């Protein structure tokens, strides 16, 4: 793998911004000492468990928990009527019950919770609870949900949000017109650290302490307070070690349940989800049906895009409305286009609830717009890169919402630098090890069965929250006799904020001894670890808090060394006079002094979209390009990804090794969506709630990755650094699919359509045979 940056570790330097400092929790993690939320225990703790609906839609006719109470070791059984406060939660609308009342709307919906002395007693209790259901016909087709005549499956109706975008002249049409419909399946975040929480009640039940793996402590706190009927300050959250999140922990799952059981029993309670339970216990990426029609002039320049999006939000709204806005506002991709008509729906069905997953609606839009750009390239007789180059957006161009892209927008550079990365020197179908060929260990394929394809994808992704949401972050910087302590509520989920926060502090303050205090609600909100926002927002907050402290340090320096604080700055570990160069170590200035500053960092305001989809609704943007080289066994439809190359617009790599980790990890998830990962729903039931049949890429499936980091610091970003979490998982998916199409096109002439994502073996087989693919297909 080649990169353009320095990846030496912290022993080579001070561990400031720009260095590949190693994680402060790394040693604990490799020794197995790091405590994840599932590793926590307390004396006298009970186990909790959840009874879930087996039906996608049913009326609860009778619910009798008394048989469970008679079981040895069972301490309590709670249902909807036991919810102390609001029996409703939700990130945007509180439309989801904490425990079901009268009706269940998805398979897995929580109906009752139990606490017992052992997991076995919990299981016995769950089995003993009597629930009589009257099954109802589930609504599983999103197209039906759009129809106003469809039976409402929820008091709020079946349409969660409809958003239209009208830009420019809708009557314009192009010399070239290409159209496609893309069906994107449901992806799961599949974080390895299963849901787990431990709640410890205050004596008298006046409050509760919750240790939980989550993405946003304060949002959990607010929703908990409402459902527990407690003031927020009585609900104290501490971040338990998080084993990955990727959007799957933004919504509540077990938080209220764990606290309810703890408060009712007066004892600590732990709830751990199993993997099959986790599959139904959190939201998923929205399945989407997207139709796009791209119009271009005779030179291949886009003149209009028409699009229709239908996102299946499942039973409860979660963040579907924001996901929809993200999807539709990214319709055009990182390209200029003056005219557009877009209609988007996020609808309610009795399928599994969907919400945030890394990429948040833009993944789906990008799959569609990149396939469209390839179709356009073919129609115009241009190469896939050429058509993208001539349409590439730049700083100052507008989205179809009218918003000007003020961010650094090095789209051409992303494309060019990706193109320049060396192609793999792996020959076609190397046969010295089974893993060199499609089919891998299965020995299905010989070299003569393999064709190699190359494909590209380019993306734009918004950073931070949108439509007027003020997702600020807070940080506190304490310097006590030279020891720096940072306090924040930023959820570390593996992305490495705990690594860069001290780097920022060391850089700003010139002090090297930096600790991070417990991550809990003992300081203001940091917003969610999502939307590629924490480097910018929490990094910005830490930076701002440290700068406030630094200002005081410089005042103290001026008092000691003469003059005004503006004459001084921090250089490496010294305070230095800008005029005459006199310097004094910062540690000396701060000796025996205490500094303590807390700052809230806000990004610039945004506005909601109006009815025509116009409005400066996004905060900032980042860009990336991907190239995929893929070997395909077209007869069996099996795929081996040989290499992924990417150039990503990162602004500034605060920690290059961390950035590379995010990029490689994001690429793995995007690759998974391209060819392996789909939750199979059947009449509202999930058919593959296990790692046996929900297939994540293994180390045998991930190819080497070539990375170019494009560092053009963004003047809007507090440290010049853009978020890097989502861009890597977005355009890699269409790049892999394009490479598969390219391979297929070598065995048979004519356009190749792969409209279902993930691409299944039979899809490749059919495309290679030249069969057209119908919309609803089995395999």
């Amino acid at each position, binding site marked *: 793998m080649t990169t353009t940056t320095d990846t030496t570790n912290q022993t080579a330097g001070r561990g400031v911004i720009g260095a590949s400092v*190693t994680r402060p929790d790394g040693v604990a993690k490799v020794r197995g000492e790091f405590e994840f939320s599932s590793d926590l225990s307390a004396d006298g703790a009970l186990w909790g468990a959840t009874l879930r609906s087996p039906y996608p839609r049913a009326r609860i006719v009778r619910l009798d928990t008394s048989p469970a109470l008679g079981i040895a070791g069972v301490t309590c059984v709670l249902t909807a009527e036991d919810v102390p406060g609001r029996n409703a939660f939700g990130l945007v609308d509180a439309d989801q019950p904490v425990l079901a009342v009268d009706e269940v709307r998805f398979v897995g919906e929580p109906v009752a919770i139990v606490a017992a002395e052992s997991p076995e007693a919990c299981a016995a209790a769950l089995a003993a609870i009597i629930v009589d259901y009257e099954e109802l016909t589930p609504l599983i087709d999103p197209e039906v949900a759009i129809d106003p005549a469809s039976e409402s499956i929820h008091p709020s109706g079946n349409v969660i949000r409809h958003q239209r975008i009208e830009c420019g002249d809708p009557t314009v049409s192009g010399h070239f017109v290409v159209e496609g419909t893309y069906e994107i399946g449901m992806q799961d975040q599949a974080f390895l650290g299963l849901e787990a929480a431990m709640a410890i009640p205050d004596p008298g039940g006046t409050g509760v302490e919750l240790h939980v793996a989550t993405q946003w402590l304060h949002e959990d706190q607010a929703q908990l307070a409402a459902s527990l009927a407690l003031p927020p300050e009585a609900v104290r959250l501490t971040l338990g070690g998080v084993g990955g999140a990727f959007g799957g922990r933004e919504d509540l799952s077990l938080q209220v349940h764990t606290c309810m059981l703890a408060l009712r029993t007066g004892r600590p309670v732990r709830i751990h989800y199993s993997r099959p339970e986790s599959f139904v216990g959190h939201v998923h990426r929205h399945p989407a049906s997207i139709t796009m029609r791209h119009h271009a002039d005779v030179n291949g320049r886009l003149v209009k895009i028409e699009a229709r999006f239908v996102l299946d939000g499942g039973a409860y709204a979660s963040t579907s409305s924001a996901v929809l806005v993200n999807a539709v506002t990214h319709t055009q991709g990182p390209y200029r286009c003056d005219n557009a008509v877009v209609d988007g729906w996020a609808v309610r069905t009795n399928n599994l609830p969907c919400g945030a997953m890394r990429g948040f609606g833009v993944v789906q839009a990008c799959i569609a717009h990149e396939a469209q750009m390839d179709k356009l390239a073919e129609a115009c007789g241009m190469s896939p890169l050429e058509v993208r180059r001539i349409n590439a957006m730049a700083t100052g161009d507008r989205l179809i919402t009218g918003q000007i892209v003020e961010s650094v927008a090095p789209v051409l550079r992303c494309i060019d630098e990706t193109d320049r990365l060396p192609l793999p020197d792996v020959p076609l179908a190397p046969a010295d090890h089974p893993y060199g060929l499609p089919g891998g260990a299965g020995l299905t394929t010989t070299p003569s069965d393999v064709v190699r394809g190359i494909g590209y994808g380019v993306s734009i992704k918004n950073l931070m929250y949108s439509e007027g949401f003020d997702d600020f972050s807070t940080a506190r910087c304490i310097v006590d006799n030279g020891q720096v302590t940072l306090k924040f509520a930023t959820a570390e989920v593996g992305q490495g904020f705990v690594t860069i926060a001290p780097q920022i502090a060391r850089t700003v303050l010139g002090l090297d001894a930096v600790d991070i205090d417990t991550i809990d609600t003992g300081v203001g909100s940091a917003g969610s670890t999502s939307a590629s926002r924490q480097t910018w927002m929490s990094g910005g907050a830490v930076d701002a808090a440290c700068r406030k402290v630094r200002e005081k340090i410089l005042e103290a320096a001026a008092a000691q060394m003469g003059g005004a604080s503006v004459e001084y700055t921090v250089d490496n570990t010294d305070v230095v006079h800008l005029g005459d160069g006199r310097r004094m170590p910062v540690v000396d200035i701060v000796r025996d002094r205490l500094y303590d500053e807390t700052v809230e960092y806000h990004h610039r305001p945004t506005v909601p979209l109006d009815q025509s989809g116009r409005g400066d609704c996004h905060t900032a943007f980042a860009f990336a390009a991907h190239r995929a080289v893929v070997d395909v066994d077209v007869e069996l439809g099996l795929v081996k990804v040989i290499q992924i190359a990417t150039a990503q617009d990162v602004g500034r790599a605060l920690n290059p090794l961390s950035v590379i980790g995010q990029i490689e990890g994001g690429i793995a998830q995007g690759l998974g969506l391209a060819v392996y990962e789909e939750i199979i729903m059947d009449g509202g039931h999930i058919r593959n709630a296990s790692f046996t049949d929900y297939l994540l890429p293994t180390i045998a499936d991930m190819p080497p990755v070539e990375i170019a980091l494009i560092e053009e610091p963004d003047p809007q970003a507090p440290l010049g650094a853009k978020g890097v979490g989502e861009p890597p998982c977005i355009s890699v998916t269409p790049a892999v699919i394009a490479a598969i199409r390219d391979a297929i096109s070598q065995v048979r002439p004519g356009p190749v359509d792969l409209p279902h994502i993930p691409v299944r073996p039979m899809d490749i087989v059919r495309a290679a045979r030249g069969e057209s693919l119908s919309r609803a297909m089995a395999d």
Partner: protein
Amino acid sequence: MSKPYQLHVNGQTLDVPDPVPGESLMTVLRERLGLRGTKTACSEGECGSCSVLVDGELMCSCLVMAAAVTDRAITTVEGLGDDGISDIQRAFVECGAVQCGFCTPGLIVAAHALLDRHPDATTDTVREELAGNLCRCTGYGRIIDAIHSVAIARRGDRP
């Protein structure tokens, strides 16, 4: 409740208090012996997060019935490395092979088994020997790097 028994873990003989009939080695390690380094992520042998060594052989502890391995030598992540950290563990930290860390203990154990058997492992062998350990955060690139760096250092070559 079944008969109490003992397990040999990381060189020590430990009594297993309050055993439950038929439970897995993973559950016994975590819930009865307080050795929580071994992680639970799927309980069906598909992810490798619970990997341990049983008489030096790599296994998913979720698939081992604890009461059936009472005379085997079990090694968990807590038992690797003299003075508490091995060269492999160090390399994982230094090469950026750890993000959320949930898969890490299982991978560390698997990497030890791999390099014991294949000190000159090619990348293909590394992939084959670690195919049973899922990671959702890193994309595996830094993990492969870490293992190669250890293999090179052990051979005494200069990196």
